[in-house]
């Protein structure tokens, strides 16, 4: 065995700390050595973007308080949204009709997500436990049938009907900030204020895997866009972005650079990079194979935090929703802003490109969702 491993039986905190320091330095040196070009220079020969197909198309009104989260259905037509009014609403984005409204036992419905089949939606909300000391969050799964389903008519008491079918899956020791269904309706992956992520079995409610590595609230998670889909990314208030192996539960890569909370993470459609949005008013692009930050999207005039990011289907555009009520559209390659979208009258809390890439949905603290 080499020198470094010889000391296994006599590992002390001092020796371990010393080794950690030298490993960190080695990592940084290694990354710098391979940092031979900037993304903007490499993209120099490409045409600039002079056309943008975004204009206000729909406004979804119905929530009575801040919209906190939203998700497109795989059918590219419906949207689920959750709000501080304690409601989860399922919208028909084409007609702007509300198709279902489900009342939660509490306000602050932080997270919601569609399952791949389009027949389930999940949400996470905060409830205070009886001791009134800790906040606890339960993930709830609602079986949900869209209009396109053959089951035609629901009774008028639809609201209660859907609620009765609810099923509690998992419980974190702090609030659940985000959730996604990885690949099937059978499992759900959640991120939590208790600084962990967790993978649950929907049917049994059993915890399949937990992911420890962050030292503060996990704010956002996203799944790598591959069929095998065993990799996901998480962003946290510890300013870190971590890449995880879902099967082993191990963190395989970590990216630092942000100077404040990381509120949003999103895989590039190629699967080789992740974009992030942070309270430090920047978005960044981290490349998994170069193992480092390859781009930063910021301007001196932009001083407000980013709550949510998403790519257009090619990955050329990065949409980012800010606390100053705006959405900035970035050219991911040339690293310049191509467009600024106004419209919302309060913070943009969530945004997402529809699965077929034809529309952008944004949700805001102004109680509305907008489609462009």
């Amino acid at each position, binding site marked *: 065995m080499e020198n470094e491993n010889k000391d296994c039986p006599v590992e002390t905190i001092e020796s371990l700390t010393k080794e950690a320091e030298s490993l*960190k330095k080695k990592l940084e040196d290694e990354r710098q050595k391979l*940092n031979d*070009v900037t993304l903007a220079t490499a993209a120099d020969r490409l045409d600039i973007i002079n056309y943008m197909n975004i204009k206000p198309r729909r406004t979804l009104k119905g929530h009575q308080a801040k919209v906190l989260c939203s998700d497109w259905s795989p059918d590219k037509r419906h949207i689920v949204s959750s709000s501080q009014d304690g409601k989860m609403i399922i919208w028909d984005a084409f007609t702007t009709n509300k198709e279902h409204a489900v009342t939660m036992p509490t306000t602050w419905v932080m997270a919601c997500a569609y399952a791949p089949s389009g027949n389930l939606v999940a949400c996470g909300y905060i409830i205070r436990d009886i001791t009134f000391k800790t906040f606890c969050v339960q993930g709830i799964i609602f079986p949900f049938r869209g209009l396109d389903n053959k089951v035609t008519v629901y009774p008028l008491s639809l609201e209660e009907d859907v609620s009765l079918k609810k099923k509690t899956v998992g419980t974190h020791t702090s609030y659940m900030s985000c959730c996604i269904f990885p690949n099937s309706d059978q499992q759900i992956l959640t991120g939590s204020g208790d600084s962990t992520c967790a993978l649950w079995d929907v049917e049994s409610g059993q915890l399949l895997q937990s992911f420890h590595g962050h030292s503060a609230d996990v704010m956002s998670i996203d799944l790598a866009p591959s069929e095998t889909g065993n990799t996901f990314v998480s962003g946290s208030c510890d300013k870190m972005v971590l890449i995880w192996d879902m099967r082993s539960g191990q963190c395989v890569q970590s990216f630092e650079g942000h100077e404040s909370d990381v509120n949003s993470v999103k895989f590039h459609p190629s699967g080789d990079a992740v974009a992030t949005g942070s309270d430090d008013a920047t978005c960044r692009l981290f*490349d998994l*194979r170069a193992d480092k930050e390859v781009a930063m999207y910021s301007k001196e005039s932009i001083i407000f935090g980013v709550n949510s990011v998403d790519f257009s289907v090619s*990955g050329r555009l990065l949409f980012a929703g800010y606390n100053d009520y705006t959405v900035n559209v970035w050219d991911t390659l040339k690293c310049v802003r191509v467009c600024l979208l106004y419209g919302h009258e309060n913070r943009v809390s969530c945004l997402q490109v529809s699965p077929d890439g034809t529309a952008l949905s944004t949700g805001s603290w102004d109680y509305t969702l907008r*489609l462009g």
Partner: protein
Amino acid sequence: MCPRSLSDTALMDMVVSNLQQQRLVTEQLRREAAIKRMPVSLAVKDIIKYITEHEQDDCLLVGFSSQRVNPFREKTPCAVL
């Protein structure tokens, strides 16, 4: 600290748990230091390639080939009244 609440064994436990924690941190760094990296130039070349190959299908970037394929198009008002 109350000496009674922090007995020798409790103190020992703390030392052990700190050691375990530091071991986890170092082991994590060992794994990350061992991964293969590629030069940024090669990595970004692939990103640019992916994007240029998919740009023509990106409706938000290049628009719709015709308004018929736009699911959010405004309904044309009825012309026959």
